[in-house]
């Protein structure tokens, strides 16, 4: 049900564009993959298959994949957008899936649970006879991936988490489109998302006032917040805000001391992104010094917990990557509400 809503929201924004030409081999935003079409053959190339990789991986799509095992919930929304939900036959940790369509399939037994993504259950995997396993390697030991390849099951690397821009990450729909034989559909969906994103970013850019933003919470002694080039920080900037660590050069996460964060951000206008806290009382329960921040006192604390799956997982971490246009619109609605008066946020909401 929600899947249909998702798809109709996208197509509502563009004409049925089946005749538009493909955008070609060069991906506009993504830097970690390209798709090469020559004649009837399509090759999907990972230019950066894993962190700090110095080799390139390629997969030739002889025929569209029909039975696929995915290893991350962030892969699933692309299947949903392309209408290929039935192509997924196995997944590790099915209890973490948020999407209704997939949860239904798991309940019906059409998607097998393969254990943990670090060590897939090999026997179940073989018994599924998949066409490919879409895997990711976060830089650790890829022992289990080698094992899978030895069993003649192709392993296709997905390094969407290495993309540093929202549109780059969302462009992975073309990656899946090529694998599933739905290149044109992927292309038109992405164009709609890209168009909406860029239009709204332009609106926000024209705003003169840029509210200041704080993000993150403490774990132990250290406050974890996104670096200046992190995926979240790009959103803050494109939504017309001024992230207080926007000048930081790293694309990962910063670990700062509480006093350093307090000094810089005690009077930030907004505090966006507070891990798993859903009320301000809970925040105080972890550390009552959170109450000293201006954004806390001014009731301007927001989190991405509005949409949740049946096991309580945040859908933001599943479908948010595929719909940067929605994430951006949510943030613009928070920072500059007058720009989108009729829009209702999808992922973010104020915490009481």
């Amino acid at each position: 049900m929600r899947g249909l809503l998702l798809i109709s929201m996208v197509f509502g924004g563009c004409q049925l564009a089946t005749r538009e030409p493909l955008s070609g081999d060069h991906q506009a935003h993504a830097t970690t993959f390209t798709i090469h079409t020559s004649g009837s053959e399509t090759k999907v190339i990972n230019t950066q298959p894993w962190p700090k990789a110095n080799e390139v991986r390629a997969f030739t799509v002889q025929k569209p994949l029909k039975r696929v095992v995915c290893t991350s919930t962030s892969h699933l929304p692309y299947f949903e957008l392309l209408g290929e939900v039935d192509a997924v036959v196995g997944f590790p940790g099915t209890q973490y899936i948020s999407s209704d369509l997939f949860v239904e399939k798991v309940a019906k037994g059409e998607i097998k649970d393969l254990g943990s993504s670090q060590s897939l259950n090999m026997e179940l995997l073989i018994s599924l006879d998949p066409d490919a396993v879409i895997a990711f390697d976060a830089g650790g030991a890829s022992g289990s991936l080698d094992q899978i390849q030895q069993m003649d099951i192709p392993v296709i690397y997905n390094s969407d988490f290495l993309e540093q821009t929202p549109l780059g990450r969302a462009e992975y729909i073309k990656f899946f489109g090529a694998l599933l034989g739905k290149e044109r559909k992927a292309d038109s969906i992405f164009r709609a998302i890209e168009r909406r994103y860029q239009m709204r970013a332009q609106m926000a850019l024209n705003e003169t006032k840029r509210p200041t933003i704080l993000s993150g919470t403490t774990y132990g002694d250290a406050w974890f917040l996104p670096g200046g080039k992190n995926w979240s920080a790009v959103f803050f900037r494109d939504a017309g805000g001024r992230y207080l660590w926007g000048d930081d050069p790293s694309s990962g996460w910063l670990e700062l001391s509480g006093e350093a964060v307090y000094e810089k951000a005690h009077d930030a206008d907004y505090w966006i992104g507070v891990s798993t806290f859903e009320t301000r009382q809970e925040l105080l329960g972890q550390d009552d010094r959170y109450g000293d921040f201006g954004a806390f006192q001014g009731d301007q604390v927001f989190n991405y917990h509005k949409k949740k799956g049946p096991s309580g997982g945040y859908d933001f971490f599943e479908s948010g990557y595929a719909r940067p246009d929605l994430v951006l619109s949510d943030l613009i609605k928070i920072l500059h509400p007058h720009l989108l008066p009729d829009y209702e946020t999808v992922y973010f909401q104020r915490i009481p």
Partner: protein
Amino acid sequence: MIETKTESSIRKWGRVFTLLLVLLILVFLVSLALGSVRIPLGEVFSFFTGGMEQEIGQKIILDFRIPKALTALLAGSALSISGLQMQTLFRNPLAGPFILGISSGAALGVAMAIFLGVWLGGVVALSGIGRSWLLICTSAIGSFTVLGVVLAASARVRSSISLLIIGLMFGSAVGAVVGILQYFSKAENIAAYVFWSFGSLGSLSWSELYLMIPIVGLSLLGSFFLSKPLNLLLLGDDYAASSGLNLKRSRVLIIINTSLLAGTVTAFCGPIAFVGLAIPHIARMLYNTTNHLLLTPLVMLLGGILLLIFDIIAQLPGLESTLPINAITSIFGAPFVIWLLVRKSHLNYRF
């Protein structure tokens, strides 16, 4: 002749303690002055005289730096005394505050809260208890459960060695359970647990300190009264008993005192390694004494001073980021202990 010897001894120790006390106050003030945020020394002094203008600086010192310094001071003293008591009780130089399985019990409590949290979730929300208090309580419950079992065992076991082994076995078993819980958990929960296990001195605010200070303070006071029994225990179980010491009662009191000290610190700060084991040795080597009447205050002062110094280093003053305290304690502490050992021609004490 004997009179003057005693007098000169009193004078010597008087000097030592005065020096250490002054050093402690100095290091405390330095830890208030250094941190990620630059607050000039003059401003720090004016904080105490009430003339500080910069409100942010005031807040930082009052809400961040003073709690952290107090925590470091208390944790350092408490863990060191606990280590001293364990080393004497078991006559084992490798003993530390966690030898009875206290940190394993705390780890189990915290692991259950974090990994099984989804079941506890309903209870937690209803009770309104904050997350930090949840971890403090489950850690304390875990520690004291293991303690209870060990105490029950101590009533039925004659020698201290058997008690030591029982403590080790419990620690091992509990550690295994934590491992299993981790294996079946999501990455974020594992990360949260790992961060707890790094130990942290800076995550306490005044509301937690209002509970920690009295408990630790009273236990430290209590440890002074255990100095005599500890001195007797150095002679060995049989000699101590023949000197009139009630072995079973002393053992129980020492174990309770140690657990209150180490268990409370672990509940509030997570497991802090190294200090409990090393400070008693440093005290014995530097001051050449095994008399607990002197060692107790020595170890308390040294423990507080050293952990404060380690915390100053861990704050990486001037830089915005920080290091976990457990990394610093061992990296800086271990070479120091080795240097002390190498410098002395032979250790004057043996168990």
